[in-house]
């Protein structure tokens, strides 16, 4: 269960998040929608522990563990996974080496035995199939020269490898064609389960036709201004964000 309470965060003294309350029970998929600049990606990065942002108030608990007390790698080990909107290319580090280091670091932290080469490769094979990812990509540098679709599939693949309990998908649909979108969504749906919660951040309703959310939130100016069922996404698709934005315009 992911519990965000009264979360305020700023970058370079400019407040971006202005008091977010959001609780996602295990087994649930929540969607966070909102216009550009509303703070959606900031929330994702703050959850993951990006030091560029300063949390000025509030708390984030994952299964009772205070994430704000943890470094990014510890949050990952504690069960948080954030799929990046723009996965970073890292020349010189192969995907396989990176992933094995990541998974064994996480397992070590969780006091699980490390995977040997055979176990690791078996798991890679199984999980790569979930997102129809060509395992040859794993011999390439991290995200190096991947197409947009490959990058996003690789993110979901990593998510499947690390078996998190809370998954944050930051605009995973951006830059995807319809086939890639379906593959990515299928991968996510296969991971849905009673012990896992999802926060799907998106600008468009499109992804939510494939990953059907239990709850939809609308973020405007760093605050959640509306919460509803999956129909709320359709309403936004039809009318756009403008009516909600003008309704909740921040007073100067």
């Amino acid at each position, binding site marked *: 269960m992911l519990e965000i309470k009264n979360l305020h965060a700023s970058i370079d003294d400019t407040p971006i998040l202005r008091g977010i309350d959001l609780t996602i029970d295990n087994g649930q998929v929540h969607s966070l929608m909102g216009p550009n600049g509303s703070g959606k990606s900031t929330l994702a990065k703050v959850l*993951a*522990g*990006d*030091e*560029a942002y300063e949390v000025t108030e509030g708390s984030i608990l994952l299964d009772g563990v205070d994430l704000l007390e943890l*470094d*990014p*790698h510890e*949050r*990952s*080990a504690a069960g948080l996974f*954030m799929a*990046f909107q723009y*996965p*970073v290319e*890292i*020349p*010189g*580090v*192969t995907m*396989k*080496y*990176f*992933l*094995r*280091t*990541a*998974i*064994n*670091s*996480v397992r070590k*932290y969780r006091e699980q035995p490390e995977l040997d*080469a055979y176990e690791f490769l078996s798991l890679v094979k199984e999980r790569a199939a979930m997102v129809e990812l060509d395992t040859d990509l794993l011999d390439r*540098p*991290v995200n190096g020269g991947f197409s947009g679709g490959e990058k996003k599939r690789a993110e979901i693949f*990593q998510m499947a490898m*690390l078996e998190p309990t809370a998954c944050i998908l930051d605009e995973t649909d951006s830059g995807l064609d319809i086939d890639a979108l379906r593959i990515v969504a299928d991968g996510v749906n296969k991971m849905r389960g009673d012990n896992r919660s999802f926060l799907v951040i998106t600008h468009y309703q499109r992804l939510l036709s494939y990953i059907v959310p239990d709850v939809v939130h609308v973020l405007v100016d760093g605050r959640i201004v509306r919460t509803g069922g999956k129909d709320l996404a359709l309403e936004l698709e039809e009318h756009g964000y403008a009516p909600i934005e003008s309704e909740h315009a921040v007073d100067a």
Partner: protein
Amino acid sequence: MSTMTTAPQTNLASRLQDIPEDAITSLRLKAHESMTTMGWPSMRDEAWRYTDTRTIAGTEFSSANADVTVELDQLEPYMLGHDMPRIVFVDGIHQPGLSTAKSSKGVQIDRLADVIANTPDRLKGRLAAHAEWSDDPANAFSTMMLTDGVMVEIAAGASMETPLHVIYLSSGGDQPISVHPRILVVAGDKSTGTVIETHAGNTDNTILNAPVTELIAGDDVNLDHYRMVREGSNTWHLGDLAMNQGDSSEVSSCVLAFDGPLIRSRMRATLAGEHGNAILHGLALGNGSRHVENLLRVNHMVPNCRSREEFKHVLDDKSSAAFTGRIYVAEGAQKTDAVQTNRNLVLTKYGKAIARPQLEIYADDVKCTHGATTGELDPEALFYLQARGVPTSAARGMLIQAFAGEILDDVRPQALREQAMILLRDRLPAAEHLALTD
């Protein structure tokens, strides 16, 4: 050039008198004369601006004690497997008991001492013909003291079956010593070969090591050279390398600077035949107060040649690195294609990197590019790795390794590449988190 101090020269001159006369006495005398004229370099000299040699200039060096004995297990950490043929020198003195290299068909491997004594004609127009000693006190000094070393002569059309490993181990003693390693490689037309030199010492004794290597390649040659520097904590390394290549030859040299308080590498490549390709690579790892100096010059003397220089410095603690690279394109050397890059990864706020690219071009249809960058680890890449569960120190290690890896990937002999990788990992702050295999 300025004269810094007379003390070492008096000392040096007397040392020359100790060397018996032989076939290269006149060369030594000329080198001595140059040395005396130039004086020991000071930081006022342009080529030595970033190399502090005051301690060296103030030290009286003597020659090594010939009685030093070294066992195989002391050599082991520096070897590249037991099978790679090697020639071993300890404090500049040849060790027949530790050496395994033998001449084979088309590949003549000799001690320079033997060549000087028995067949000095083989040295004519070769030894000290390309490595400029008249403008470099360290080389002049080394040449003045030259009595032994290795000569490799690859016959036309012949190939070295395995790389040759020349190990110069330093041990020193109570008195400061100087060592003057010399390697001369002559590669005939259409020949191939690889020569690796290691300069190493697990000692705190005061040592000046001034190696000079000359690579002379004919036409259609493929020759690779590597210099691994793992000197002791008080060993000053002032190295020189010269390569000269004929038509359609590819000659490469890579210097891997890992240990030692001062590692200076002067490298000079001369493309004397058309369609030649000169490759100069370097990787330096700086920690403590190490200073790494790379001083390069590529001479494009004829048209249609290519040169590639790529030097990377990883600077931790208070270490510093200076890169000076001159690309010289002679009049008429059209269609020259020269690329020079120097990238510095500075890990602390005390690390310091200096890059000085210099172009001297007398032809109009050429492509010469140079680029120098100095930066820290990419924070976005660091965060990405951390967000996937990789601890900060290991993530830093991975990125440093990736930076250095681009040079190490081009190190062709597997044993050397693996040794360099392990040395790199051992010296990174987060080594214990890193798995050794992919």
